[in-house]
């Protein structure tokens, strides 16, 4: 690991800013968070990713102080947050609904937290102006929240939560209400602002693309459990389970008997060669669609299986081919459309060969 790569989680000398230690949260009989431990380091843009109801919002709300853990400890900068009420925590939250105060204009919304701290008037004004500049909303300072657009409201909410210069900024589905184009622009803006301010960000999202774009590390959650915490690239290239592989991007899973060098996946078919040190036994080969080549003739590759094209999804820059292989399983293979559509040589019902190298896939035993 070189020095210019930001990876404090690999550096044993670094101490975490936020520490969840064996945190469990129950609502009655329902376990929302099940024995979760996470360390988040200063300057990180940390994403909690999972389907709705997986507990990611609960996990964030416990750090803000709106929920109390049933057991376990949450500490911030080494201090146990157990008995600290939300208004005394050095943490600010940007709400999914933005929660802008409708009876106050943009300026007063941003000034709200600063005034609660009893800051002198001129300091409040200076800070609010600075925040308005940061999110480029100087012109809208005197408008009420219902007189600005959704994207502007989102920026006001961001400015308001950053105004007090919190140690940690919590973002609950911050871009959920924006349309796709604006969302993508705002993702980069968020990263930009995070780098400018140096604040530690923690984001809750169900959108894996969003998590991949903005974050330094992602915790993939399912039913109150953390499945894997890793960088976006590692999650994509080295998922530790079928759940993570499937949640992050698109994946083909071929079930079979793993014997240490080959996966025996169907009676009478050539076993698939894979380089992996997974334990032998029942396992799945995880193969990303873009790592599978599709051709009309049998290619020279570590693995090649024939199949029939049953569907083609044309996405413009890419095409996804759905190919039925012996045994009836459907495999998705992706190819870039380097040629014009009219010159494409593979079409429906064609017999084709799918091929990939022995290092393209991953053997997963859970």
């Amino acid at each position, binding site marked *: 690991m070189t020095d210019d790569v930001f990876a404090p989680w690999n550096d044993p000398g670094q101490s975490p800013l936020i520490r969840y230690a064996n945190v469990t949260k129950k609502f009655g009989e329902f376990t929302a968070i099940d024995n979760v431990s996470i360390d988040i380091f200063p300057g990180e843009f940390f994403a909690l990713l999972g389907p709705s109801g997986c507990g990611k919002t609960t996990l964030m709300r416990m750090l803000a*102080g709106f929920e109390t853990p049933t057991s376990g400890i949450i500490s911030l900068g080494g201090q146990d947050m157990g008995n600290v009420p*939300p208004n005394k925590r050095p*943490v600010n939250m940007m*709400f999914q*609904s933005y929660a802008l105060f409708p009876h106050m204009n943009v300026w007063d919304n941003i000034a709200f*937290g600063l005034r609660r*701290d009893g800051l002198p008037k001129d300091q409040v004004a200076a800070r609010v102006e600075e925040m308005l500049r940061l999110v480029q909303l100087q012109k809208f300072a005197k408008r*009420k929240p219902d007189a600005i657009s959704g994207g502007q409201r989102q920026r006001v909410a961001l400015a308001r939560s950053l105004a007090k210069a919190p140690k940690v900024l919590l973002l609950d589905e911050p871009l959920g209400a924006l349309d796709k184009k604006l969302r993508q622009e705002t993702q980069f803006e968020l990263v930009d602002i995070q780098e400018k301010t140096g604040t530690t960000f923690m984001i809750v999202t169900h959108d894996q693309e969003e998590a991949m774009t903005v974050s330094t590390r992602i915790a993939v959650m399912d039913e109150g459990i953390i499945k894997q915490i890793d960088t976006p690239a590692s999650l994509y290239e080295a998922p530790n389970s079928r759940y993570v592989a499937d949640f992050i991007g698109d994946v083909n899973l071929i079930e079979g008997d793993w014997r240490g060098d080959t996966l025996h996946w169907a009676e009478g078919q050539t076993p698939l060669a894979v380089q992996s040190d997974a334990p032998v036994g029942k396992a799945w080969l995880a193969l990303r669609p873009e790592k599978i080549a599709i051709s009309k003739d049998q290619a020279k590759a570590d693995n090649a299986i024939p199949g029939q094209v049953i569907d083609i999804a044309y996405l413009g820059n890419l095409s996804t081919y759905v190919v039925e292989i012996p045994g009836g399983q459907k495999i998705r293979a992706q190819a870039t459309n380097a040629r014009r559509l009219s010159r494409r040589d593979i079409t429906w019902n064609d017999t084709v060969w799918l091929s990939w190298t022995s290092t393209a896939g991953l053997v997963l035993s859970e």
Partner: protein
Amino acid sequence: MIRRVILWPPYIWLLILFLLPFALVFKIALSDYAIAIPPYTPTFDWADPSSWGATLGALDFENFQWLLDDPLYYTAYLSSLRIALVATVLALLIGYPMAYAMARAPAHWRPLLMMLVILPFWSSFLIRIYAWIGILSNEGFLNMVLGWVGIPPLSIINTNTAVYIGLVYAYLPFMILPIFASLDRIDPSLLEAAEDLGCSRTEAFWRITVPLSKAGIFAGCFLVFIPVVGEYIVPSLLGGSNTLMIGKVLVEEFFNNRDWTVASAVAVVLLFVLVIPIVLFQRSAERRDAT
């Protein structure tokens, strides 16, 4: 065209049920008292144009002058306004916490709580006020219970205290419902955001909840204040001889003294006294819609 037709019924309603009766009352207020049936002169007959001149000739404002000369009337107006103001404040102080509790109650409780607030409307207003006589009278239910506990009996009936109890009881739902409606609309995440930005719970209540329920507070206060100023049943049933309210004075003038002309003048002035808060209410409602 159709849109205009749709607008007619309210205007026709207003004309028949408000403007015409008001014109009649106003005419009587401008007439002179007489020992006759009906007890004023000159009588006016649309069919007989010769009586028009007599009506016009007898026009004067002496009944209104009389209202100013006799201190009974303006003290009654002032006393009505004061009682209505106190009753409104009391209803607000009692109604706001109730509305707040309703808005904060679990969702499956709310229909039941709402039902309990509306339930009294299912029985007659008059009967409910009579029931309060049974509770508050000297040998009534309240003193019976106090007797069991060993507290000396209170004499509440026929005092202003009884009037306030009756008024607040009768008009409380009109305070609770609009406040509940405005509290119910407040996004709970606003309060979390306020806490997150450094407010204590109490501070968040005063800075967020109260300003955002202002519309409901205004509506509730006007809905209580306006009818209470002209209230007659509660002060006449629960109040005593020293409870001075303009509604009571009006009825006494009309039925006991049979002085239709002065009674009509009292009614006309009462209307103008009430028009001011009604206009204020309308304007505040319009301002809210505009923002």
